[in-house]
């Protein structure tokens, strides 16, 4: 599903990249590539940092660079439902299925996106939440619906949970070529593989990009519990039931009064 999109993106990037005599090279890295969820996990903040490497010619020209970093989490199909009053009570009456939208989407930039790139460029590069495709399932077909209230609701609800965000001042340039940004991952972010796509702009044009990866994994006990519950449901259930009986028995012995 997303493969043609990535191919199109790569082609677009190549085209735009090839246009100017690009002498800049984008270098970026993350403070941590393996985030482990342990029992005291309450969310984490990652630092993205990088620099724009210029050759001698460009270094003298004093170009102002822009950075847009897009963090995308594992994709998972989501249903958005709308309530309506039926016989006096509120019931879910309508729903739309979104096919594999990102479960986490953060767009970090140093300036508002509409200042960094033109509307045309933003759409082509899928820059920002508004231009990120969120295809829906329509009668066994998959497609984009423009001005869809269900899409708006999905983005709003995900934003309220801290899962979707777009920040125009999240990237800070420490020097004209050195930048950093913090990626806030709230506690409820899903586990899995994340990509960070960093794009470098100058004068409204994409002049370089680089992609980074990181993963969020459950480790130790948490991992064990989840795996047991998913893979061996019956055994897990029996073990949980046994734990309940044991707790009940211990309590009855501990508080015995006769």
């Amino acid at each position: 599903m997303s493969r043609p999109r990535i191919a199109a993106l790569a082609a677009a990037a190549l085209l735009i990249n090839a246009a100017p005599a690009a002498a800049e090279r984008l270098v970026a890295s993350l403070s941590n590539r393996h985030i482990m969820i342990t029992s005291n996990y309450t969310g984490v903040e990652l630092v993205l940092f990088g620099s724009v490497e210029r050759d001698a010619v460009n270094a003298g020209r004093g170009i102002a660079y822009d950075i847009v970093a897009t963090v995308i989490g594992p994709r998972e199909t989501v249903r958005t439902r709308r309530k309506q009053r039926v016989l006096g009570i509120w019931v879910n009456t309508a729903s739309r299925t979104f096919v594999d939208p990102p479960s986490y989407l953060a767009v970090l930039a140093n300036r508002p996106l509409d200042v960094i790139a033109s509307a045309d460029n933003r759409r082509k590069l899928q820059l920002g939440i508004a231009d990120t495709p969120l295809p829906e399932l329509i009668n066994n077909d998959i497609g984009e619906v423009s001005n869809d209230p269900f899409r708006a609701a999905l983005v709003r609800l995900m934003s309220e949970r801290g899962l979707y965000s777009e920040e125009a001042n999240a990237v800070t340039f420490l020097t004209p070529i050195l930048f950093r940004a913090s990626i806030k991952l709230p506690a409820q972010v899903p586990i899995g593989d994340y990509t960070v796509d960093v794009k470098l702009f100058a004068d409204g044009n994409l002049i370089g990009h680089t992609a980074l990866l990181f993963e969020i994994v459950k480790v130790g006990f948490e991992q064990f519990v989840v795996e047991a519950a998913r893979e061996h449901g019956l055994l897990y259930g029996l073990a949980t039931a046994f734990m309940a009986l044991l707790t009940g028995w211990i309590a009855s012995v501990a508080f015995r009064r006769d």
Partner: protein
Amino acid sequence: MQIYLPIADIPVNVFLVLAMGLAVGFISGMFGVGGGFLMTPLLIFIGVQPAVAVASVTTHVAASSFSGAIAYWRRRALDFTLALTLLAGGIVGSAGGVALFTWLRALDQLDLVIGLSYVTLLTVVGVLMVGESARAIIRGRQGKPVELRRPGSHAWFHGLPLKLRFKRSKVYVSAIPVLAIGFIIGFLGAVMGIGGGFLLVPMLIYLLRVPTVTVIGTSMVLTFLTMVSATVLHAATNHLVDAVLALILMVGGVIGAQFGAHAGQRIRGEWLRLFLGLLVLAVGMRFAFQLVIRPDDLYSIRQVGGGL
């Protein structure tokens, strides 16, 4: 201290959940009920998904009713034959309840049905309990003796076949109503995450004429058996039982229940029933308001799994 719940996928404060376990345990020990009808809404309130809350509370109720059942067993105040007959109906009911639960979740109507069931059940039971206990209190004030129920009054189902003799309870009744009661309790337990003790006790007393001596013990045995089977069924089909959450709840619950039982012995029966009735009614009203008042957000989202 925050702890991450592996199945509910949210971090919670251990002391908050422990305190909830203690408080609900106190109430359940005081009134002799499982407390599931209070615990499930509380968990939903702190952000646990309703489905995970229902599934995990079944485990919590299994633990608290097991410790209660052991105490009654030591006093020989329970009827195993009756409990096992009820259980036969209860297991079928649990399986049906878990199946309905799975189906409703797929239809996006689980939250609504849980809400509606809570409103209906809690309002009806609450009103009945408040009415009955208020009458008893007024009668007591007027100095009239407690109304005695006529023994031997027969309802239509006493004429049904397949009669069984339950020796310890000293009743001789058809197996059909017993199985049906078991089915209802098992079904509601699986769908709503409640033990159903507050329904079972009056049903056994008023419908089957089981003596009060064996009623609570028998109800505890049935509750723990149906909740154990609901735990296993929920874990095997929906993978929603959070063992970490259940463990914190049950530790608080069993401790709270001991103090609750102490406190309960110092209050007179009809007042105890009045307080429980008001509590049940309050929870029911809370659910009713939630269904009737326009929600802050008409939209909600739910993950339906990766890929397609």
